Each structure stands twice: as structure tokens, then as C-alpha cells.
């Protein structure tokens, strides 16, 4: 079995375990203030780290390419309260146009 399949299956099991765990553990277990605060901060930290890395990194190298223009367009779309699909499409089209016109690689 490929590494991708292993990743898909293990991550799926892990995510389901989190869901089922919350339905099964005693209430007080997850209600400690620190656990709650960290779990509120965790999605923000991880998602913003993913935004940064997926915009500026190629492997272990930091680069500026058309993805930056795409991200900028996505932020503008979000400020204009555009729905998810519009945000993603606007970012992709912007990056594609920048590449097509030779403004960015």
C-alpha cells in the first residue's frame, strides 16, 4: 500500500477518534480551562501556518511567486464577504493571470 493511502487511512482514524472521544469521555475531562483555550487557538495557529507555507514555500525554499498575488486577491474577496468558492476561484484566476502576463512565475 502506498504512503498516501497510509496517510489517508491513519488521519481518517485519528479524526474519527477525536469525534467519538468527545461523545464518550466524561464531561469534565475536556473542560479544563487550559485544554479549552489551547484547542481554541490550535485551528487558528495551524491554518495560518498552512496559509503562510502554502503561499511562500517550495519545499524548504522561501519564494515569491504568483501565489502571493492569489492570496492577496483571496483576502480582498474575503473582505468583500465573498463565499468560499468565489474566494478560491478568484485566487486561482489571479495567479494564473499573473503567470500568463509574465508578472510572476
Amino acid at each position, binding site marked *: 500500500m502506498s504512503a498516501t493511502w497510509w496517510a489517508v487511512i491513519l488521519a481518517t482514524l485519528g479524526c474519527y477518534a477525536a469525534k467519538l472521544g468527545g461523545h464518550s469521555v466524561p464531561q469534565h475531562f475536556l473542560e479544563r480551562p487550559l485544554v479549552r*483555550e489551547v484547542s481554541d487557538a490550535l485551528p487558528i495557529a495551524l491554518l495560518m501556518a498552512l496559509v503562510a507555507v502554502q503561499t511562500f514555500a517550495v519545499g524548504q525554499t522561501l519564494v515569491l511567486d504568483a501565489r502571493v498575488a492569489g492570496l492577496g486577491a483571496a483576502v480582498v474577496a474575503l473582505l468583500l464577504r465573498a463565499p468560499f468558492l468565489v474566494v478560491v476561484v478568484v485566487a486561482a484566476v489571479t495567479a494564473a493571470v499573473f503567470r500568463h502576463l509574465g508578472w510572476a512565475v
Partner: protein
Amino acid sequence: MSTVEGHLGSDGETHWHEERRAIVVNAAGVGIAVAAYGVSFGAIAVTGGLTVLQTQFLSALMFTGGSQFALVGVLIAGGGAASAVATSVMLGFRNAFYALAMAPVLKVHGLRRLIAAQLTIDESTAMAVGRSVEHDGGRASRLAFWATGISVFVFWNLATLLGAAGANALGDPKVWGLDAAIPAGFIALVWPRLNDRRSWTIGLTAAAVALALTPFLRPGVPVLLTAVVAVVAGVLAVRRKVES
């Protein structure tokens, strides 16, 4: 809930029919809105190198958008399976807290609990916890949870298939700017959570830490290490509350 229902009589039942209809309509609306994420997920996963089967497997069995995007994003960036799994599962932790909030309302056991767990996601929880449990013993809240969960599951999976099948025809992802679609998807996912100064501080710190570590560590690991930022933020928040 018996005392309340006893007093309501037929007026209460009429009201319930209206409320039930409104909940089901809302649930369908949320499902259709979420389908947009699903199309993007299917397209991004398949252009990034996952098979249609792997992509569909994630939507059906993982069924939590942020974690699915994270797994695929890290794999596409060459981050390796271990970092991809760890990032994905950490993002899925929040569902445990949703489950914790839903368990006393749903009161399910056995097979129903296994199914309820799978449907415990951002949307189903948001629609359910918005409803007061006191006036009807949680009847509306339970319906909102199940209706939204099932609606999102159906639309999410159909949309994933559509995106995945369509993406096979696209070819090179860079020509279409699909590499820029990935960070755009993540910023759109985190956007509703960036609602005060503290969340921006956490987010921008994590972004800076991930970029600073990128040249020195394997792809995927820097993102994982920003969990430390979340832990520090949590400790500081608890301390501030103790002091005040």
C-alpha cells in the same frame, strides 16, 4: 420536556411544525453552501496527485473539511505522510469539543452514537447549539444537528466527486493557478476565527514561526510545530484569567 409540551397543546404543535420546516430548509441551505468547499477540495486533491478513490474516501470517512484540506495540502507540498497525518488530526481535535457539547443534547448510544460522532462537525454543531435546549428539551437542537449533518454529508460527498472528476480534465495545476487555490482555501477556512486582536496575534505569530522554520526542517514539520504557539497562547490566556 413533558411539562412544557403538555402546556403547549395544539399551538405548540403548529409552532413545532413551522420550526421543523425552518430547520430542514436551513440544513439544506448549509449543505448547498458547503458544496462549494467540496468542489474545491475534490479538484485540489486530484490535481495534487491523490486518486479519485482516496479523495472520496476522505470526504466520506474523514468528513471534516479543515483536516481534509490540511492532509492533502501537506502531502502535495511534499511534507511526508507523518506530518500530514499529525497536522490533519490536530485540526480535527476541535470536533471532540463539539461532540462534548452535543452529547448531553443528543443522548445517543450504540450505533447511533457512532453515526452521530461522524456527523459532529463545524456546521452541524453550529446549527444545533444555536438553539435553546430549555424550552423543548432539545428537540429542535437534535433535529438541527441530524438534518444539518446529513445534508452536509450528502452535498459534501457529491461535490467532492464533481470536483475530483472535473479536475482530471484540467491537467497542469499551475496553469490554472490551482496552487494558489490551496492557501486561499486555508485563509477562507480560518477567516471566521480571526475575529479579534488575540486571534490575529496567534495567527500571524504562527505564520511567522512556520516561515522562519521552513529552510531548516522537512516540509510539513514547521506547520506542526506551530501547535506550540497555540499552547503558549492557551497558557497565557488561562494565566490572564486567573490574575483578573
